[in-house]
């Protein structure tokens, strides 16, 4: 007899159709798996009731593999074959790894990603991570009683493309279908945003085992907007352990220890750190294999002192993220603490001091990310309907738009829009009889195309020849849940269509995105001026061309003096159009408009006379109605 869960009203799944989906927090130190049951996100425990799986993999002499606590127990006696904190090596070359000389592994440099030599052969970080994922997969399938449809795996916001790809590869190797990679702070926000129904601007301070992330989010009506992110991909609780380790060597006057002793000392360092969360001092006693003994007491004062630089290293990115968001510390309504390392009192104190408020920590900081990922997985697997109010999946880091006349950027989808999203805008032709339109897709915040990043170009051909401004070209930007952008241009009268698909984030690193954002703020004033000037220029150019066409067609409606006046105004405009003075340009444009007013009126009369010639009164009434309706539509 199957065990059933309670569904939302009207959403009972048909038998065998409830899709089992989980969220996985693949952490540097510990990993967790969570799922949504009867509408509640819950972390899944192992047989012993433990939620956290240490992210440790050991390759045994008999060819088998141990993951988690069993593996962790052998950290000290089998350091070379027991891989900890493998997340730090994901998608990284040997030169990227801090303190690689202090680690007990035999690294092997390989193109793209470092490898570790173990007794089971040379292992890539992807393979090691896959073992952790397999273990979580087994736990989830046992707990849910079936095969998983898909998973959401969280990654630090700062993971670059290589690191994200490596994570996806590990999941594939573990036989998991990745519904999506989700940024850890976003997952934490999902967990908090729903459970607490908060609104306002929040900071997510995530100090995990190996990474530090700060994200500034705005929560409103259940929708999150990411205002800015920052962090340090090589800073975490492990570094605090390392400081204690170094202090122990010094305090106990130990000579450089063997790999095995080093591991045991690191273990004690971590225990001492955790002990100090609730105590004022932690005694450390240990007899090393070398015969030396460690007998020291780590006090809160010493711990705070030796880790002060690490703590302030987390505050720097916080300041920067706030600056990027254009906010001050007192604009933040709440600070969400994520990651086990945020339990350290000196971290809580430093964060409280900087934001001048006590940080929020009512959800277990070790579990929030997994819980948020589980909610996302449940949604993506299709177990919920789309009327839920927290549909945030991800956001577009930089605005997407296209180039318009004069090299200006027209933003179609603004930055921080949640995806998936589709936006359309209508454009028209610039010249009479124009039959093709070049669509240049760009990404960036700047007003001029030259300052943005070019993503793709394509052409819409076969537009029926019409007067400038008559064709209606609908350009649709669509970004799917994986961040893939497709742009379609369609002339609505003739139905001709053309499209292109691009991946906007491709090749754009977080650093580049940050730089581009900073540029846009620094240049906002210049850009606005240039934009206004360019717009006036485009308008002037259009006016000149329209006037020339009119003169060519209907010159007979003007007497010599009138013609002279228009020609002069035209020449004057052609002269100032290159200048930088927008006011002069606008005034000259107005002058030309004034000079041609009478001419335009006569042309209008003439065309009406032509149109009416030989028609019945009823026909005229009908067509007038049609014209009015047409205008209303616009």
């Amino acid at each position, binding site marked *: 007899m199957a*065990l059933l869960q309670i569904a939302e009203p009207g959403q009972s799944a048909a038998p065998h159709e409830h899709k089992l989906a989980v969220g996985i927090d693949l952490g540097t130190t510990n990993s967790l798996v969570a799922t949504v049951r009867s509408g509640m996100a819950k972390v899944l425990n192992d047989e012993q009731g433990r939620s956290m799986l240490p992210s440790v993999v050991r390759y045994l002499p008999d060819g088998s593999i141990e993951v988690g606590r069993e593996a962790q127990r052998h950290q000290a006696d089998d350091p070379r074959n027991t891989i900890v904190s493998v997340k730090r090596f994901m998608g990284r070359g040997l030169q990227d790894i801090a303190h690689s000389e202090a680690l007990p592994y035999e690294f092997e440099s390989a193109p793209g990603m470092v490898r570790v030599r173990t007794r089971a052969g040379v292992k890539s970080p992807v393979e090691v991570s896959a073992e952790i994922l397999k273990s979580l997969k087994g736990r989830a399938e046992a707990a849910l009683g079936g095969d998983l449809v898909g998973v959401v795996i969280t990654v630090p916001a700062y993971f670059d493309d290589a690191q994200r790809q490596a994570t996806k590869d590990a999941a594939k190797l573990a036989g998991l279908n990745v519904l999506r990679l989700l940024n850890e702070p976003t997952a934490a926000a999902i967990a908090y945003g729903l459970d607490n129904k908060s609104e306002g601007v929040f900071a997510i301070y995530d100090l995990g085992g190996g990474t530090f992330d700060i994200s500034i989010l705005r929560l409103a009506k259940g929708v999150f907007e990411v205002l800015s992110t920052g962090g340090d991909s090589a800073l975490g609780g492990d570094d605090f352990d390392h400081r204690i380790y170094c202090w122990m060597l010094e305090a106990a006057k130990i000579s450089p220890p063997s790999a095995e002793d080093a591991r045991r000392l690191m273990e004690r360092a971590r225990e001492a750190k955790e002990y100090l969360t609730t105590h004022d001092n932690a005694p450390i006693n240990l007899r090393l294999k070398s015969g030396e003994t460690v007998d020291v007491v780590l006090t809160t004062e010493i711990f705070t002192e030796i880790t002060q630089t690490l703590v302030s290293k987390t505050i720097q990115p916080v300041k920067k993220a706030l600056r990027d968001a254009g906010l001050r510390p007192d604009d933040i309504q709440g600070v969400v603490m994520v990651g086990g390392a945020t339990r350290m009192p000196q971290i809580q104190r430093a964060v409280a001091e900087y934001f001048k408020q006590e940080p929020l920590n009512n959800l277990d900081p070790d579990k929030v990310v997994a819980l948020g990922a589980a909610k996302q997985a449940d949604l993506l697997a299709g177990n919920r309907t789309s009327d839920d109010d927290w549909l945030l999946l991800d956001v577009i880091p930089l605005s997407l738009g296209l180039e318009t006349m004069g090299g200006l950027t027209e933003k179609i989808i603004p930055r921080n829009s949640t995806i998936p999203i589709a936006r359309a805008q209508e454009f028209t032709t610039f010249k009479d009889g124009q039959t093709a339109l070049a669509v240049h897709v760009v990404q960036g915040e700047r007003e001029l195309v030259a300052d943005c990043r070019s993503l793709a170009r394509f052409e819409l051909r076969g537009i029926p020849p019409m007067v400038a401004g008559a064709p209606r070209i609908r350009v649709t930007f669509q970004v799917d849940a994986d961040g893939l952008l497709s742009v379609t241009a369609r002339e609505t009268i003739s139905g001709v269509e053309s499209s292109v698909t691009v991946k906007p984030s491709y090749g754009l690193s977080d650093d580049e995105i940050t730089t581009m954002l900073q540029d846009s703020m620094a240049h906002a004033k210049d850009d606005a001026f240039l934009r206004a000037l360019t717009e006036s220029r485009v308008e002037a150019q259009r006016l000149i061309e329209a006037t020339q066409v009119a003169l060519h067609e209907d010159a007979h409606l003007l007497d010599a003096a009138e013609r002279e006046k228009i020609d002069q105004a035209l020449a004057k405009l052609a002269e100032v159009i290159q200048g930088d003075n927008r006011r002069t340009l606008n005034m000259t444009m107005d002058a030309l408009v004034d000079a041609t007013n009478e001419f335009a009126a006569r042309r209008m009369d003439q065309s009406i006379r032509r149109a009416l010639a030989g028609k019945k009164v009823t026909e005229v009434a009908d067509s007038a109605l049609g014209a009015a309706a047409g205008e209303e539509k616009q």
Partner: protein
Amino acid sequence: MAITLTESAAKHVTGFLTKRGKGVGLRLGVRTSGCSGMAYKLEFVDELGDEDQVFESHGVKVVIDPKSLPYLDGTELDYAKEGLNEGFKFNNPNVKDECGCGESFKV
């Protein structure tokens, strides 16, 4: 005619409803589908229908539509743990046969 919850089931339902923050009770029902003909429905209730029958068991309102009632009369809903898995279980005296997984049944 009666539907009951075990104490454990009632405790879990109350807990889920509290966490959810809204809802007046638990809806039980059946519908035709699945490999053995009928399938159970287990949902939160936000609004009662005109024809709904309401039972009360251990402080939980159990809501059933009149069409489902004959198939569920006498059912006891339990909350069970099997290994790592846990969830609700229908102990339904009307069932003659069910599919291997128990997600659908015949009367």
